[in-house]
């Protein structure tokens, strides 16, 4: 598959996401924030970083980038979209996913190897995992606390839209330990931790994150 990775001004983990896509067996395609063009890709990753310096609000400016018009439209047609960290924030700001990400409850940036439980393996990005699988991948964020109103949280849990939950320790004050969610269709996934930093034994936090890229399956969602 051809997987696009968008670079916004201030994107940082775009090279990492491209590497993870390649190691996952796909072709990485660089996408530019200023282009109204997805270059015919089969899936899109919105990578981590501090797009537009996180000025105003994380992801609030990026959602207006020309490329996002195309991403939102394509996501509506079932294109698999994975937003990691800042990408998750952009997906929430774009209303492709509900809720929002706020400053960590302890007010500090945190970088650690984080244990998660995969709670939904029926999304476009998690089919490689067993439901209930416990994985350790990198977490690094300053504004990673997932919040939503109670009704939304109940709905996310009730509909199985919680993709991953923090185990052992909630690193940022996310409500109900939510680390990642998906839309009703299962093609759009937002994840605060970084699977692209856990795809090689040599670097990062082991290889538990590789499944997000090897398991990518587009056909079922379009």
């Amino acid at each position: 598959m051809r997987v696009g990775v968008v670079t916004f001004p201030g994107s940082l983990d775009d090279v990492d996401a491209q590497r993870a896509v390649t190691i996952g067996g796909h072709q990485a395609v660089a996408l530019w924030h200023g282009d109204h063009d997805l270059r015919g890709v089969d899936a899109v990753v919105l990578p981590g970083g501090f797009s537009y310096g996180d000025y105003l609000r994380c992801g609030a400016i990026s959602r207006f980038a020309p490329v996002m018009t195309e991403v939102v439209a394509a996501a509506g047609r079932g294109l698999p979209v994975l937003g990691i960290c800042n990408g998750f924030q952009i997906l929430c700001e774009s209303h492709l996913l509900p809720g929002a990400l706020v400053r960590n409850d302890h007010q500090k940036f945190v970088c650690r190897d984080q244990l998660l439980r995969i709670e939904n393996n029926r999304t476009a990005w998690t089919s490689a995992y067993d439901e209930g699988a416990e994985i350790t991948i990198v977490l690094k964020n300053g504004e990673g606390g997932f919040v939503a109103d109670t009704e939304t949280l109940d709905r996310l849990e009730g509909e199985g839209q919680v993709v991953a939950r923090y185990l052992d320790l909630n690193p940022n004050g996310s409500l109900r330990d939510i680390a990642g969610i998906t839309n009703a269709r299962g093609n759009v996934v937002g994840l605060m931790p970084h699977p692209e930093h856990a795809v090689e034994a040599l670097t990062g936090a082991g290889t538990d994150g590789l499944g997000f890229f090897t398991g990518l399956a587009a056909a079922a969602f379009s």
Partner: protein
Amino acid sequence: MPETPAPRPAVLDTVIVAARDPDREQPWAELGLTAEEYARIREILGRRPTGAELAMYSVMWSEHCSYKSSKVHLRQFSEIPQVTSVGPMLAGIGENAGVLDIGQGYAVTFKVESHNHPSYVEPYQGAATGVGGIVRDILAMGARPVAVMDPLRFGPLHAPDTHRVLPGVVAGIGGYGNMLGLPNIGGEVVFDESYLGNPLVNALCVGVLRHEDLHLAKAVGAGNLVILYGARTGGDGIGGASILASVTFTASEGGGSGPAKRPSVQVGDPFMEKLLIECTLELFAAGVVAGIQDFGAAGISCATSELAAAGDGGMHVELDKVLLRDSTLSPEEILMSESQERMMAVVDPADAATFLQICARWDVEATVVGEVTGDGRLVIDWHGETVVDVDPRTVAHDGPVYERPFARPAGQDALQADRAEALARPVGGDELRATVLRMAASPNLCDKSWVTDQFDRYVRGNTVLAQPSDSGMIRVDESTNLGVAVSTDGNGRFTRLDPYAGAQHALAESYRNVATVGALPLAVSDCLNFGSPEDPDVMWQLAEACRGLRDGCLELGVPVTGGNVSLYNQTAETPILPTPVVAVLGVVDDVTRRVPSAWAVPGDRVLLLGETREELSGSEWAHVVHGHLGGLPPRVDLAAERSLAELLRAGADLITSAHDLSDGGLAQTLVESCLGHMVGATVSVPDDAFVSLFSESAARVVVTAAAADVAALASRAATHGVVVTDLGETGGDALVVRSSSGEQFELPLLALRSAWMATLPAARA
């Protein structure tokens, strides 16, 4: 876009005005110049300087920019052959940063700098802009910055002011570095009373380039354009210039409407710096950069004079073309502004359109502000009138050089006679156990993840090792697994006791740390943090440290590639512990063979490499338990360091882990090796058990190896003349220590880990 302000013809101090009005009083003293220096400027120019010229000379001749007090001592570093184990240096001392060949067509550049004083005044912005400055230095060499490290020193952990400085500095480094997408792979966190009013915030950056991409800071080729790009110029970091503006200009204007005194600490915008990095790398790749200079201290004054002085001609700049954040800035202030995230490039006119197009793609503002000329002069105009006309070399290179007096301090002999070896020691297993536990939880030895977890160590996906490893390690090439390892070390207490030996200890430890992870040490960058050069005692420390470092580098065959000197680090009359911080960079042919620092499996043999002597003076034990500093530091044996490093490489295939011995001695190394993966050990230490555990003798490393490989490793050690002591075996859930005379104690790892990890979070709670 704000309108460019109208010129102020009535008050503009041009070259013509200066000639016509030679006796005007000028605020040279307020700008930090001495009467002699001011007289020298008048002599160079053959007239009084204009206000703008005075501004330029005053910042470029400052201690920070001119190294006027340290230059005579730094010169000896250029006596070290500029060649590493891989080959000749590609760029050496004098450039923004030294550049080393690491093979396969790759080069690396690295440098450590200080941002001490700003970080005390405003911890967050001071530390943040320290990262920004060193990253631009590396970028200006044509390299992609790939990692940062931060050697940090603070006052006592529990002092109230530390609670202001420490969190601010850590958040500033994280806030800036994390947003640049540069992994923070190591550094130091040290607490000592002497840093209470004067923290040391040093920052290191490593960059990677292909040989052919090397760029130097030169303004060459008459007719080439000078382009300023990046952030706009504002009123930050120009305390001195504001004095100038208010004294000479606002006053003569007859009103008080000029700019007030401005904050002298710069404010960083890491988002702009990230754009600047990507934009600059794209400019290099497009081949449209003939010369480049980053903006650091002294802003446009520095960039224009250094570019012109290093080039083959002169430079003409139209200062009113500079894009401003504050339209009321005077030409003097624009010249001195230390606004961050700016670069200056020299560009062939044929490439200018491409240059500006690339900048626009990255939303980076760029303006042609002048051109390279052939007359050897640096001429700066303000709305058509010349306010600067100087020989750029007199600004950038011909600053004053002082042979400051220095002398061995009167109290040095008494200090060295007060030996820690005479202090009361723990006796018996219980006291030894309590001491190990207390030491592990002490501020300098405890777990530092409260600090390092605020830094992104993973971004870019090439971090092979990061803190708490002995060195950070970065993969340079994904197909060949070529990489580099870097460590920074310094020991202010050892240096206080003997500056010559202390500087060599910093070098030796850093060299050893790089070898411990399996790298070949290549070269050094240093940051020399000292008190006031006007104090002969301090100058003696500086002189001795420089001499020690030079001799050490000569003996180890590692050149000094560049660095930084930070003076006037003191509170009232009391200087900091003299603190030369030494960074050593090494090359790793195959990063997959890196040696981890913690024990991974039970059943390995634990081996001590190197000799232990009774050396407790200046040790962490004397500091923690007795609050004592006196005696002579451990003996430096660079030949032993070299043999040890060679053995670590020769035995890399047999070694399953390696961790050096330094602060806290063998006890702390055992503790850290156990806690990495929570694998215990049972070890027997030679008598006297206390000395074995807490002596800080240099040139020692603990390694592990499979039992079947011990004989082979011992045989290689013998070849290299390194003593091996088999201490015991890994395994279990406790650290069990026995001595030959029967003392014994046991520390369950869970309890040990709790104590080790609790200190920083508890102090910050």
